[in-house]
């Protein structure tokens, strides 16, 4: 089993990069003092790095260990088991991680109205995520969930837009150099990622079966951006603060 798993990830450079970020993040996080570990500006990015590591390992494991995959599949649906691991990504990437990223953007907002909008977006998205489990409208084990993918990216684009609005209007940001402010960079990457993969995610079913070259191209772009995002998170955990400069901001 382990040989199969290792063979599966051997040429997967994205997996290697994610694992490196995960290992370094864990190391730097453990080296931080307790107060900083509890700081949500550090804790949320750390949990997101761990989440990506978790679902990437799980997704690969589900491909090499079909019996366990089938057990999970049976828990989620009565439809025939095809050996796919799409449900791992549907739950952890398209639902949990999108909510996590939304939370991360939310904690960086300063305007009360912006925070409220993000909270409402989060609740709407969460309700929509829970709905298919009970209604069986969209099978969670498949890739036919265009509305879920559309909503996931839309909430992140709106939340990122709200952050930029805050950046140019709020008093808190007036003394801050955005180029030395790590949340500015990771929210920019989140927005880039969401915008670029928006159409590809919505049309994932078509691309997967009809145009695999385009699918792989978007997949590559998405992976590159995600590695950059995880690297920024790792750097943030390493520095233990939101700023690249030595100046201490509170």
């Amino acid at each position: 089993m382990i040989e199969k798993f290792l063979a599966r990830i051997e040429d997967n450079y994205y997996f290697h990069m994610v694992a490196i970020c995960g290992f370094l993040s864990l190391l730097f996080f453990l080296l931080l003092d307790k107060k900083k570990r509890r700081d949500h500006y550090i804790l949320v990015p750390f949990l997101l790095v761990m989440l990506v590591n978790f679902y990437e390992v799980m997704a690969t494991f589900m491909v090499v260990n079909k019996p366990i995959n089938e057990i999970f599949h049976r828990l989620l649906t009565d439809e025939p088991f095809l050996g796919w691991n799409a449900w791992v990504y549907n739950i952890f990437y398209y639902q949990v991680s999108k909510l996590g990223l939304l939370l991360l953007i939310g904690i960086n907002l300063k305007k009360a109205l912006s925070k409220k909008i993000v909270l409402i977006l989060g609740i709407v998205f969460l309700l929509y995520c829970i709905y298919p489990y009970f209604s069986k409208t969209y099978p969670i084990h498949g890739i036919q969930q265009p509305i879920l993918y559309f909503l996931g990216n839309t909430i992140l684009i709106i939340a990122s837009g709200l952050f930029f609005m805050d950046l140019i209007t709020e008093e808190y940001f007036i003394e801050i150099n955005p180029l030395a402010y790590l949340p500015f960079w990771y929210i920019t990457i989140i927005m880039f990622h969401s915008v670029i993969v928006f159409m590809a995610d919505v049309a994932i079913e078509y691309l997967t079966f009809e145009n695999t070259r385009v699918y792989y191209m978007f997949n590559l772009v998405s992976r590159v951006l995600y590695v950059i995002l995880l690297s920024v998170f790792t750097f943030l955990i390493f520095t233990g603060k939101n700023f690249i400069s030595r100046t201490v901001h509170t």
Partner: protein
Amino acid sequence: MMEEEGNQIIFILFSGAFLAALMATFVVSMVILHRQRQVHNKQKMDQIKAEYEKTILNIENEIQQDTLKHIGRELHDNIGQLLSLSKLYLASSKPEKQAEGRQLINQIITEVRGLSKTLNLDWVESISLEEFISQQLDKIKSTGFCEVVFNREDENWELDKDQKLVLIRVIQECLNNAIKHASPNLIKILMEKQEGERAIRISDDGIGFDTSLSSQGSGMTNLRKRMETIGGNFQITSSPGQGTDIILSLPI
């Protein structure tokens, strides 16, 4: 078929590049807007700082001019008299008069030392606001102009020099206005700490005035501006025949 797929990929690549360029433009615009806001804010801060410094300088000048007037009066009415008297005593052949003359000289030295201390503004730092108000009210009372009441807390307020300077000047101005225009029987000053702020309440039972009248407005506007310079507030309530009530408040 291959050609069609190739075209599709080129189209998607161009679309992606266009989208990326659009996003990059958006982010760069945000950074530029933020920078512009920073520059604008810096200019505003510089302007506020310049106004603040100008106000403090004006107040220092006014206090110094008042001090010079006071010194002039003291030299003429007090020290001048004492010197003339000591000259007479010292010129006397009687030893007891000469001794009195020497005593007067010692008194003059003390008076001159006291006056020299008021020449610069160091006294502002050495005196507490409570002591200053107490001195001012004592002066008014000693002239027999009206009765005074001063209610204060046990502890002295901790204020920085500029805040104290502005408050001293504003309180002086309020008391001067009461003496010049209100003809009160009682002037009352109350110092208290309220929720999140400190307040000085100056009230008199004089003739009062209509606060909406423009002739009175400029002086009050000046006092209000001065209080705002140190982050405080100036509030006035008055009407003809009902006395005047002024509240100077400062955040803690």
